[in-house]
């Protein structure tokens, strides 16, 4: 198992190197540059030229890439063009907020999605099945920003049940800090979980139906086991396998979804950091975030492979 993990980690190095070239090329070939956004009637062309030079943008692209990768090898992600702070420390400031949001979303999705799937499967063709199906389709089709805005307008503005954004109350908080934070987490996490809930519920329904038609389930029922034991003791464990597989793939999806959700809910996470950096062509920042996100995706895949083995003992790592 350790050997397997080590080998996978080593394999990740060339992958990440390839990714680094790709993202460098993509961001640098996109039209625009950081100096374009400097705008003031008292600035002269020479100020802009000087700034481009000071940022090193006048050097050949391949030299800029080599510089970046060499520094990276020393653990130096460079500094933001904009705030002039180390890229890594800026990411580390924001990363916990995104992880918090994503984890909450995963937990919600894992609780709600499969439950709905099971309900749908056990009530196949009935009203519940129909409702779950409609819910999944609707939630999947509605864009995150719209869902977020609707929740804000209805639950925050109209009924004042939840806050309209931010991570905590800035003025006049009426609950203890931890509860206040959880209270702020509910709506954004729900929006972020919407897509995965739809995915998991549909997947779970299909798998459950398949498993329930297997011989060993019939045997279990024939033995006279209680339906609950059949469902949760025998069927569920097998039906969960595909969910575990897609879980690894959900992580980058959550990161992508966080970009929109964080903007709508004023959540100071990585997603927004990335969007802002991309608009302003803050190259070191964009590169740093992309690279860290890639690492997270690679780790997510690895995690899901390991989980796979735990859920399904037939899988052995060699």
């Amino acid at each position, binding site marked *: 198992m350790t050997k397997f993990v080590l080998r996978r980690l080593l394999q990740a190095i060339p992958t990440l190197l390839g990714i680094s070239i790709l993202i460098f090329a993509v961001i640098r070939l996109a*039209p*625009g540059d950081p100096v374009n956004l400097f705008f003031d*009637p*008292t600035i002269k062309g020479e100020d802009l030229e000087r700034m481009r030079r000071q940022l090193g943008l006048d050097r050949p692209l391949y030299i800029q890439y080599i510089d970046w990768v060499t520094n990276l090898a020393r653990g130096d992600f460079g500094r933001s063009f904009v705030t002039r702070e180390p890229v890594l420390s800026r990411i580390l400031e924001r990363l916990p907020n995104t992880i918090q949001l994503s984890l909450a979303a995963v937990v919600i999705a894992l609780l709600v999605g499969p439950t709905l799937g099971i309900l749908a499967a056990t009530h196949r063709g009935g009203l519940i099945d129909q409702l779950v199906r409609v819910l999944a389709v609707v939630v999947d089709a509605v864009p995150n920003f719209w869902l977020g805005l609707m929740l804000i307008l209805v639950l925050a503005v109209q009924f004042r049940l939840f806050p309209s954004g931010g991570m905590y109350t800035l003025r006049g908080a009426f609950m203890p800090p931890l509860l206040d934070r959880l209270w702020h987490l509910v709506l954004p996490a729900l929006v972020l979980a919407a897509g995965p809930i739809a995915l998991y519920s549909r997947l779970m329904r299909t798998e459950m139906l398949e498993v329930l038609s297997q011989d060993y389930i019939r045997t279990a029922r024939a033995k006279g086991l209680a339906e609950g034991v059949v469902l949760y003791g025998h069927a569920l464990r097998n039906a969960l396998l595909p969910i575990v597989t897609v879980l690894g793939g959900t992580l980058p999806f959550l990161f992508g979804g966080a970009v929109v959700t964080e903007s709508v809910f004023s959540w*100071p996470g990585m997603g927004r950091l990335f969007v802002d950096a991309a608009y302003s062509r803050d190259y070191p920042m964009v590169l740093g975030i992309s690279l860290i996100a890639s690492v997270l995706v690679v780790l997510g895949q690895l995690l899901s492979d390991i989980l796979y083995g735990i859920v399904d003992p037939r899988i052995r790592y060699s």
Partner: protein
Amino acid sequence: MAGVSRREFLSGLAGFTAAGILLGCSGPSAPSPAEQAGRPVYGGTVIFGSPADAEILNPILHNDTASSNITDRIFDPVLRVDPLTGQPAPWLAERWTVSDDGLTYTFYLRRGVRWHDGEAFTAHDVKFTFEAILDPRTRTVRKSNYDMIVGARARIEGKAPETEGIRVLDDYTLEITLEEPFCPFLIQGMVRGIIPKHLLEKSEDINRDEFNRRPVGTGPFKFKEWVKGDHITLVRNEDWWGRPGGPYIDQYIRKVVPDSTVVTAQLKTGDIDVGSVEPSDLDELEREEGLTIYRYDDLGYTYIGYNVSRPPLDDKRVRWALSLAVDVDTIIRTVLRGEAVRITDHIPPASWAYNPNIKPPEYNPQRARQLLEQAGFRPGPDGIMRRGDRALRFTLWVPAGQKVREQVAIIAKDQWKQIGVDVDIQFQEWNAFLERLRQGDFDLVVSGYSLGVDPNPRAFWHSAELAPRGFNRIRYRNPEVDRIIEEAVKVPGCDPEKRKRLYWRFQEILADDQPFNFLYSLKALVAIKRSIVGPNPTTFGGVFHNLHDWYIAK
């Protein structure tokens, strides 16, 4: 730069230098609107919800409105821009004199001003600030704001350890000598926040100093905390020189709310007290009992730009035809709900240099067609005007996501069609759009410019500032305009009347040349909680210039 949402950037275009670098409404001695309204009450917090987070809290380094919104509260400039007139007025300097030849300025600074850490403020801090800007190692776009000072060029190029023309005469007297007269000098150079020498002179690298995250100034508010991407909190400076006891409110918080719909929502829930208003949300917010909507004229404007270096747009008749074909008044009435003023040229009505005698192109499609015919165009079989084998087809580039400008483009396209001009609209992400402008790769664009507090239009219209190097992105060249621009900044005695006359001529030429269809200047709209007493937003001061006078009525 980064962190500036396009929306804020645009509103920045508007009141940029105005809202950006200014501080203070009425001088500390004059009774403020707050004091006139009743007995001010101490206490409370004002929260401003705005799309972008600040970038860097050092007034010599930043170039975004979010950062200046904060640094303008923390740092004091030597002079401030009078929020009502746009003229320089005393601030850290109690008074100043100018020599007869217009070259030597002497500033007499206030005594007893202290930095937030208790150190005394002196003329050495002022010299240090300007030297830091000119230092070749400092990464700032402000160097040319000071390059007319004697010895500044040598300093910028690293050939001199200090600037000859900036001299400290004693702790409270500073003398600055210019190489040649430059009328915008005070408004351009002396209204920047002053930074403390004692905290930064030993800095290894001012670009990266921790100071830029935890600033120390002399201003009415002190820095308390900055949670990146979330909020910045400032607290009252009780020892502020401007008023014993300092500002009335305890705290000022700038909260990041990236989505404009959510800004509106939070104004309604009371999570924020101040927020700018989109014209489309105006009706909704005006119905809210607890909010007051303030309006003020802005120095920014929106235009449709013609690439004058591309035929047939080099033909004035074609440009005029395109301008006459667009019904701007209807756009203002419908799309902008009347919250804008029609403009005629680069200098909008809010400026002291505005020329009221110029008439904008009146919507007149028949006249537009005639002009095209005079220029040799005839309708083709498809209805599109053509000259020889060349049809009148253009591409109009529009920044994506800027709703109002997208609508303007769509209306214009439709109206151009009626005079036989076929226009294809392309939307592009903001930075890529700016790159396209810089490279000159366009026929037509919808975009915005802004006048500074001083109307000097050099950056946009002088031929020495042609893109890709400078901001003159449509590549406009006119020797007479160049001459007027140069002359207007060195008028003897900087007599505003004489300068105005030159700028009036500049406006006449520009309006006649019609390099742009100058469309409108949006009114700035801001919603503020009704219980807050004291706000008095102005063109030159923006919303927060007198934040130290605001209080919350009980």
